[in-house]
């Protein structure tokens, strides 16, 4: 182990402070007794109670989860299909343009994506609500899914699918029984990514939602405009907790799989 120099300690401290100080302050003040956010008046959990009694927040949370679930499922299906087509198509004229067009929405300013979708929905005469947010989130999340899944498909041995066909599978069966189980980890991470992206999106949701549907980020944003309250701090802390638990669980599962595979491979090497 290398010794930590004075310089390393300092840069590490500053780096982490930069990343986490705002969140730490937010969490600390969520336990503040006082209604004034910036003045500490003793420890209390009463704002958590307030949040859980606030039906507007709970409704918004439910809308957010619904939107995130539906849009991530749609984005996963479409993104996986896109990835398969792009990886399998081989070389053709305009391939670079095509793949560039699939990935462009990732770097497109959200304001533009949101505005263009809004214009589309208006011109189609669609009532804006949960459904339009789902469509909008699907649009921008599917390119992320496509990136994640294609990176797995590139290393996928094409002869596995040929072997399945050779052993009597129809092309659909070959996909369901061989390709999908093998690329499943990538599909699941794509889904998780899409889900998280949808959960915390504010800009696109604001453009495409109607009066009937408000997502949690939108609710928080509109409440903050009337002044930051400890209630918001409590709500944000809950969100941080949920995301943290999700991320930690996912990485633990992943780590366990890696460890198990390594153990099995070692066992196989000993046999060989």
């Amino acid at each position, binding site marked *: 182990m290398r010794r930590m120099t004075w310089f390393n300690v300092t840069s590490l401290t500053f780096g982490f402070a930069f990343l986490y100080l705002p969140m730490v302050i937010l969490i600390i003040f969520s336990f503040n007794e006082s209604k004034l956010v910036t003045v500490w008046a003793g420890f209390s959990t009463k704002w958590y109670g307030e949040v859980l009694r606030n039906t507007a927040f709970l409704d918004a949370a439910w809308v957010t989860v619904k939107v995130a679930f539906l849009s991530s499922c749609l984005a996963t299906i479409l993104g996986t299909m896109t990835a398969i087509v792009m990886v399998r198509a081989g070389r053709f004229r305009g391939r670079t343009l095509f793949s560039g067009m699939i990935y462009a929405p990732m770097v497109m300013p959200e304001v533009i994506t949101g505005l263009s979708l809004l214009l589309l929905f208006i011109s189609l005469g669609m009532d804006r609500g949960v459904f339009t947010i789902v469509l909008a989130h699907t649009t921008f999340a599917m390119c992320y899914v496509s990136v994640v899944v294609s990176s797995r498909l590139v290393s996928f*041995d094409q*002869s*596995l699918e*040929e*072997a*399945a*066909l*050779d*052993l*009597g*599978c*129809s092309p659909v*069966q070959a996909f369901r*029984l*061989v390709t999908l*189980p*093998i690329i499943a980890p990538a599909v699941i991470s794509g889904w998780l990514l899409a889900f998280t992206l949808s959960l915390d999106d504010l800009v696109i949701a604001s453009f495409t939602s109607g009066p009937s549907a408000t997502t949690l980020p939108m609710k928080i944003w509109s409440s903050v405009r009337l002044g930051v309250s400890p209630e918001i701090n409590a709500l944000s802390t809950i969100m941080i907790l949920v995301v943290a638990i999700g991320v930690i669980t996912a990485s633990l599962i992943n780590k366990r799989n890696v460890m198990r*595979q390594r153990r*099995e*491979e070692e*066992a*196989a090497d000993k*046999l*060989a």
Partner: protein
Amino acid sequence: MALDVFAPWDDPNAKPLIQFQNVTKRFGDFTAIDDLTVDIFEKEFFALLGPSGCGKTTMMRMLAGFETPTEGQILLAGEDIGPVPPNKRAVNMMFQSYALFPHLSIWENIAFGLRRDKMPKDQIGERVEEMLRLTRLEKFARRKPHQISGGQRQRVALARSLAKAPKLLLLDEPLGALDKKLRQETQFELMDIQETTGTTFVIVTHDQEEAMTVASRVAVMDHGKIIQVSTPDVIYEAPNSTYVADFIGDVNLLSGKADPQGDKLHMHWAEGQPAVVGSPLEGAIKGQDVHYAIRPEKVSISAEKPENAANAIQGEVHDIAYLGNISTYHVQLPGGQIIKAQSANNRRISRRAFTWEDKVWLSWTDTAGVFLER
């Protein structure tokens, strides 16, 4: 006692299992298979041998159904299989990469094809156990492919492709990933399994030794054409061209002008050297360009000029390749040409007869080599 020799290709009444009829396959401008016609018989172990890019893999993929011929027909048991998709063919393939399903156990890998055929459960179990026994994998049934060694994976791939009892089994470089010792053992295993199951095997390989060892017949390919199809001994002893002679094993090739004399053909090939004498080449006329191929192990090396040898030339030992069981002497002739002569090392190395720069005589009989037209 007459031994019943397996040679359906010599029997005009035998019905071939597979018939390639004027098959051509093009990928864009590239012609992978060029107007190819060949018959493969039931229970044969047929090897497609050639350098990479010669079209051997394309032929195999057309048999499996992954490619369709651009022109011509492929018949399996008399039926055109062109329009039949891979999953409806009584043909199975063992892939070069083995293509074992990583998410399934060895047992489930072998059962995969049987399940697709909607075979009853108890029969699937029986058949899988039988395959596991055949390939000696009983102990590994519950393992995943990444939990077993390379040699075992190879056997799983074989078991899986044999499980459906196909009419025809295709093997794409099946032993390429194994080290030499394991490969040689596995070659004999493959032959045993082929005999036990009576399945027709078509193997693709670029390893001429492998093709010679396992195959009943070998097809030597080059640029989408079959140059010669025959049994391994004929391919080796009577190649039909310098390409085949050169591709299979080690060979000395000489070129010169033909000079038929009586029942022998003489070839004048270098100033100041005696003509090479050998069995005649059909249709060769005086002055025609011909080639002569002779295997190094058929060239004897001696200190004194041998008496009564049909062919004898003097040279100087230029190089010696000691391979343990045999030594190859590279002998330089006065004209600069090098002729390789091989002799078995039936004595210990300390008593070896020749060393570098020794003057030696090379000799061979008039039936040892062959004259070739091209």
